[in-house]
């Protein structure tokens, strides 16, 4: 026979389990997922720090539209230019943010856009140069209102 006490402990356990499951099952990428996404783009090459400047504000009120720009030091000649720039976020639902492909006709390796950030996290920009080397820069950002996962009013 089910006593009142037994029923209540079982119900509490069940509720706790459901709460925990929905919390841990949230659609969030992890730093490991970001590494995997980076590997998919750059392969096995080593990434060095420097040459790239990722410009994003360190404190963000609204994660829905965060101005972000990437500048790479490069003469942008036919022999030595930036081929691609990739931007990744550590804790967005998807680690990829943007990939752009440039060439010697770009003249200047500078791109800016507006992105969504779901959480306080690290943002990384990786540049692929024409000689096959990869360079990166990382920025820490604090986000007060997160993007992507809020409930829509429809």
């Amino acid at each position: 026979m089910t006593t009142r006490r037994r029923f209540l402990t079982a119900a509490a356990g069940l509720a706790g389990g459901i709460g925990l499951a929905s919390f841990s099952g949230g659609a969030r990428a992890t730093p490991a997922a970001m590494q995997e996404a980076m590997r998919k783009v750059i392969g096995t090459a080593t990434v060095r720090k420097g040459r790239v400047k990722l410009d994003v504000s360190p404190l963000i009120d609204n994660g829905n539209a965060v101005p972000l720009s990437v500048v790479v030091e490069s003469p942008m000649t036919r022999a030595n230019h930036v081929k691609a720039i990739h931007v990744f976020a550590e804790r967005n639902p998807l680690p990829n943010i943007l990939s752009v492909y440039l060439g010697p006709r770009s003249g200047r390796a500078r791109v800016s856009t507006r992105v969504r950030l779901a959480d306080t996290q690290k943002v990384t920009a990786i540049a692929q140069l024409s000689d096959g080397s990869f360079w990166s820069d990382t920025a820490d950002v604090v986000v007060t209102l997160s993007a992507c996962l809020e409930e829509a009013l429809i």
Partner: protein
Amino acid sequence: MARAVVNLPATVKRGEVIEIKTLVQHAMETGFRRTQLGELIPRDIIRSFVCTYNGEEIFRADFHPAISANPALVFATVATESGTIEFKWAGDKGFSLTESAKITVT
């Protein structure tokens, strides 16, 4: 009907690096949001952007759901000759939009 705005100088000197600003009207629905009834809203984003200068590709971008609504993109190019710069966006649900701008190089 979606609209796009592009901004670049109309006349420039040969060899000068010009800045091109683009802005396109699009909700960029991420595919991670839910309605108040708990249903997932399907993803509807712009996937790719290509810029061609007199038919030759000079810049290309792949967008992901982390790009804000009404995607803005600023990039640069070298003014080589007079002609047309064409911008093309393509995305989910058959989204396709083309915009072009004339440039005079002296």
